């Protein structure tokens, strides 16, 4: 039998489009326009899950975002699994595959359910804090089983085939919610010419108008919706976003909207389409028209399938043409919920009775029910329902809400559906995301948004404005006000006519009393997803948890994926009564984004995989790729690490590259170094202030190495700066430090020394830099340039201009390898041409491209530091044995000078950079290894330093390292030891950090 519970007519579904879907392995049919929940109910599926703590059977209770139970796993393939989808928000599509997330072997016969019944009484809130402590070593074992029971759905085990992106939006007015108030607000704002965005979480706009009994101007309300939407669609600056939930209200009117573009089509987006999109909206004004959620009453066994919100009953009947039962009992404390009974009655179904907690209700809807002959029991409520897997009866008894007592034995009514309504809670979430505390209104028995500094307007149900005409009028007024405040001339629209009705006040009733008292009554659930009962909340307050946050945290109230949309107010009310205080004194917990859950991928957007972060390439990158380079990530750059030839590993390649440089000539792409063009009459003075050493006397044509410190005296960058004209310098920085150094220089120039006449411009990308290093570098370069390469004409630490390979170049004779070296800089567009000429000419010299690894070995043999490797932000120039680079007598107190003279910084015995020579020349000291003087001491050992750089050198014939050692500079020749993880100890001699060519003869040729 198919769709047993589908009504013969009615609803907004398309009965001509039958859709097959499966739930827990069984195939069912529904219609286009159904939600998954509606289709399940149409097929009489009662149990959609098992509760996580007590394993109780659970059914669908709501029709929208507030649903706590129908949390299903969706996905027809491993890669497209989606955990925790609310069946009430999932549009039905053909081929949808859904399963329950808990229950073993299945939700209908769940073995854990028996355990839940027996063990449940031993699981009050916080029970795990009180047990599983002994024996001490057993917690991890206990926890293994606890974890197994945890969670709802499951993550896919394969990578997501879908993509997600962002759209940055700006608007004058963003309207949240397209119900009656939101539509009216959008209309008023849009007609003024304002840029408007209207977003709603549902499949179509209209909100409650899609299932209301009311008429607008005498016509079905949905017709008004269609007309409004059509008018909005025709306006140029209006963006309409259905299936789009505004999830976060962030500072300065920045809001995020999660739009589900294809989830109604399938679990995987059609090829070429983005599955979901996050709109990042900056709104001048925000109109919150989020409406209100109906609250259930809290009574015994209120979690049994067949207990449902009254409004949800109406929605299923009127919007989806589904009757989730045959015989209805309604339990209410307000007029509005009578709609459910009337809709049920109009659908030709039996209303067994209405239990109204109020003494003498006389509102229009009440009278309408009376007129239809529906039995109404006043001063009464459903105090418990019964049934093993579905409601078979409800016990209605007279109650005294003031005394919180049952005053009659009551009677059991046969029914299969209990509709419940405890009043309405305005959806204040977004209004409260920025910390604005909502305010309790006794007249509507709900929290409404409090004052907030945000530029926003609240309209309709969120304000407690419930009657339809009032909500529309409020929407028009609020939309017009928002647009006016945003600078537009706006006016309100015409409110369509509604039927005037008398509506009486809601009675304050949250937890329904039970004759056995809360602790002994059948479980009265407050938060069904977290299995939090009224008894649990009472227990929490009894144990001293008096603040609302404490109650929440101790019981887990509101921690579910529904974030307590149904349960929170009831929980507050129960805690307040238990503590003998009022609800406003109790206050609410904090509201935080998200309003409803958002896919990780959507939050991440396109910034994944190859677009995770920019990759920066030099102008010569293609050549490196062609020549087989392996790359190293340095900041965002890809730098050639080494260039292996066939069959070579990194060691063989680096050994070959090193030898080539020492014996003949090597080529390094140094383009990634930061380069800053500095011009101005005060350029020299500026350099004096930011470098540790002196720049006053650097002649035009010369270059100099410099160290930079922060105010604390610790080294933070270094590089060579050349004087290219009297008021003109080219500075180089480390690859990783380029942006940081420029920003830091601008900071001092703009905020400390604005009187200095100097400008900085980054030229990192403009110049490509090729380093030729090795004894044959001069010969090779001579073949390609018109520069006089004579050793006297072009001495060390100078630069020349001239053509290289026919391209104008600046050539710097500086060296980071200890060999004769030239850095050739050309305009980057021409770099590849120059490189090709160099490579061609270099063949006869065995010109060998080398990468960062070889560069590191060669510079370490010379004792040259790498900032960030041999330093760590706690090293001064003195610590690095670079006092030669500190101009202590410069007239201006340059950055770092004062810092390096502090008490602890001038202390003897600081860690100092030295060379380390393993006693066994074949042993390599791991980089990072800690050093001790006495390897036999007990743990904790007195560590005296660590290895910063370490290499197996083929030039030297032994392995060597650099490292820092306490007082190391005065300990030359002494031994240090490095105890290794495997128990071995590496012994090393403290030596000078210059291992190779200490007199610098090789570059002085």
């Amino acid at each position: 039998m198919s769709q047993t519970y589908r009504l013969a007519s009615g609803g907004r579904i398309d009965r001509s489009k039958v859709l097959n879907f499966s739930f827990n392995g069984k195939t069912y049919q529904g219609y286009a326009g159904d939600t998954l929940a509606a289709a399940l109910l149409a097929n009489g599926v009662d149990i959609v899950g098992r509760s996580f703590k007590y394993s109780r059977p659970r059914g669908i209770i709501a029709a929208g975002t507030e649903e706590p139970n129908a949390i299903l796993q969706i996905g027809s393939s491993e890669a497209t699994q989606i955990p925790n989808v609310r069946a009430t928000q999932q549009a039905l599509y053909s081929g949808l595959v859904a399963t329950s997330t808990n229950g073993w072997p299945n939700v209908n016969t769940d073995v854990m359910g028996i355990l839940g019944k027996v063990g449940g009484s031993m699981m009050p809130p916080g029970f795990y804090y009180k047990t599983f402590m002994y024996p001490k070593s057993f917690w991890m074992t206990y926890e293994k089983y606890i974890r197994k029971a945890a969670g709802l759905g499951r993550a896919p085990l394969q990578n997501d085939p879908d993509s997600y992106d962002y759209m940055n939006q700006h608007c004058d007015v963003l309207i949240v919610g397209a119900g009656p108030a939101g539509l009216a607000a959008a209309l008023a704002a849009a007609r003024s010419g304002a840029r408007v965005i209207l977003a709603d979480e549902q499949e179509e706009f209209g909100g409650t108008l899609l299932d209301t009994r009311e008429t607008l101007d005498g016509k079905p309300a949905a017709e008004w919706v269609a007309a409004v939407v059509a008018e909005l669609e025709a306006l140029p600056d209006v963006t309409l976003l259905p299936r789009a939930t505004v999830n976060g209200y962030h500072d300065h009117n920045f809001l995020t909207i999660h739009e589900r573009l294809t989830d109604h089509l399938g679990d995987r987006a059609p090829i070429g389409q983005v599955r979901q999109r996050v709109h990042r909206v900056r709104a001048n004004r925000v109109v919150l028209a989020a409406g209100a959620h109906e609250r259930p009453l809290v009574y015994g066994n209120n979690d049994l399938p067949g207990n449902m919100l009254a409004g949800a009953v109406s929605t299923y009947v009127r919007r989806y043409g589904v009757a989730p039962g045959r015989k209805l009992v309604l339990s209410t404390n307000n007029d509005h919920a009578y709609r459910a009974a009337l809709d049920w009655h109009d659908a030709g179904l039996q209303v067994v009775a209405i239990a109204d907690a109020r003494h003498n209700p006389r509102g229009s809807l009440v009278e309408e029910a009376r007129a239809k002959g529906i039995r109404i029991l006043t001063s009464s409520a459903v105090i418990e329902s019964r049934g093993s897997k579905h409601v078979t009866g409800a016990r209605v008894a007279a109650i005294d809400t003031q005394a919180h007592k049952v005053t009659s034995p009551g009677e059991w009514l046969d029914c299969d559906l209990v509709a419940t309504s405890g009043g309405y809670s305005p959806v204040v979430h977004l209004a409260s995301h920025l910390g604005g505390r909502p305010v309790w209104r006794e007249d509507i028995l709900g929290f409404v948004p409090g004052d907030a500094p945000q530029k926003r307007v609240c309209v309709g149900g969120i304000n407690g404005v419930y009657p339809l005409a009032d909500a529309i009028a409020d929407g028009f007024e609020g939309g017009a006000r928002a647009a006016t405040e945003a600078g537009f001339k706006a006016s309100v629209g015409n409110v369509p006519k509604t039927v005037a009705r008398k509506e009486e006040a809601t009675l304050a009733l949250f937890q329904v009393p039970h004759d056995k008292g809360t602790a002994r009554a059948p479980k009265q659930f407050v938060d069904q997803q977290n299995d939090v009962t009224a008894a649990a909340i009472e227990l929490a307050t009894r144990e001293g948890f008096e603040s609302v946050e404490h109650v929440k945290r101790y019981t887990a109230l509101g921690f579910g994926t529904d974030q307590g949309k149904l349960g929170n107010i009831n929980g507050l009310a129960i805690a307040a009564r238990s503590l003998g205080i009022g609800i406003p004194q109790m206050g609410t917990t904090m509201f935080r984004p998200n309003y409803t859950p958002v896919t990780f991928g959507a939050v991440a957007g396109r910034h994944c995989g190859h677009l995770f972060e920019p990759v920066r390439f030099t102008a010569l990158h293609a050549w490196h790729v062609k020549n087989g380079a392996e790359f190293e990530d340095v900041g965002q750059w890809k730098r050639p690490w080494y260039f292996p030839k066939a069959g070579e590993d990194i060691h063989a390649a680096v050994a070959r590259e090193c030898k080539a440089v020492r014996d003949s000539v090597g080529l390094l792409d140094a383009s990634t170094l930061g380069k800053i063009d500095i011009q101005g009459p005060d350029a020299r003075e500026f350099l004096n202030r930011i470098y540790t050493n002196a720049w006053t006397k650097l002649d035009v044509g010369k270059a100099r190495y410099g160290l930079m410190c922060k105010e604390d005296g610790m080294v933070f960058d270094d590089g060579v700066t050349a004087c290219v004209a009297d008021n003109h310098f080219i500075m180089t920085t480390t690859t990783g430090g380029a942006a940081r150094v420029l920003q830091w220089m601008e900071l001092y120039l703009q905020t400390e020394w604005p009187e200095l006449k100097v400008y900085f411009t980054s030229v990192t990308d403009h110049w490509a830099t090729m380093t030729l290093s090795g004894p044959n570098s001069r010969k090779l370069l001579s073949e390609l340039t018109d520069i006089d390469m004579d050793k006297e004409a072009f001495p060390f630490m100078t630069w020349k201009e001239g053509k290289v390979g026919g391209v104008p170049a600046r050539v710097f004779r500086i060296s980071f390898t200890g060999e004769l070296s030239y850095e050739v800089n050309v305009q980057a567009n021409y770099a590849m041409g120059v490189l090709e000429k160099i490579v061609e000419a270099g063949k006869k010299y065995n010109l060998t491209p080398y990468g960062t690894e070889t560069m590191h070995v060669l510079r370490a043999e010379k004792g040259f530091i790498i900032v960030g490797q041999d330093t760590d932000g706690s090293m001064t120039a003195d610590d690095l044995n670079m006092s030669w680079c500190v101009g202590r007598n410069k007239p201006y107190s340059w950055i770092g000078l004062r810092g390096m003279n502090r008490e602890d910084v001038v202390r003897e015995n600081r860690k100092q950079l030295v060379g380390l020579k393993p006693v066994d020349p074949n042993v390599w000291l791991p980089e990072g290894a800690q050093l001790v003087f006495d390897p036999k001491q007990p743990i904790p050992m007195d560590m005296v330093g660590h290895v910063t750089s370490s290499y197996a050198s083929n030039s030297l014939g032994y392995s060597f390292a650099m490292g820092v050692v306490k007082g190391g500079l005065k300990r030359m020749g002494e031994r240090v030891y490095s105890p290794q993880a495997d128990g071995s100890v590496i012994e090393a001699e403290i030596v000078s950090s210059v291992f190779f060519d200490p007199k610098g003869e090789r570059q002085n040729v």
Partner: protein
Amino acid sequence: MLHIFCPHCGELRSEEEFHASGQSHIARPLDPASCSDQEWGEYMFFRDNPRGIHHELWDHVAGCRQYFNVTRDTVTYEILETYKIGEKPQVTAADKQEAAPVIAKGQGEKV
């Protein structure tokens, strides 16, 4: 995400374009050598860190690359004014105490 008025670009821009650089108006001592360790430590590390009105330095890194000052409430995150280096704040913690509640002036306006 904050919305910050760059006094040089003359527009409100998203926080993503900026880099926060800590408390502003911390002048480097003119004669560091005469500072005690304590005074130098105060200059480098000690900050007002107020709950409430805070004058801070921001850098419009993605835009005009200029540093400028922002007066911001560190509790509500409201920006009360932005102003160029060398200028003085119009809103201070003292004003705020006298004339509470202060109307947010200046956000989105040139100062």
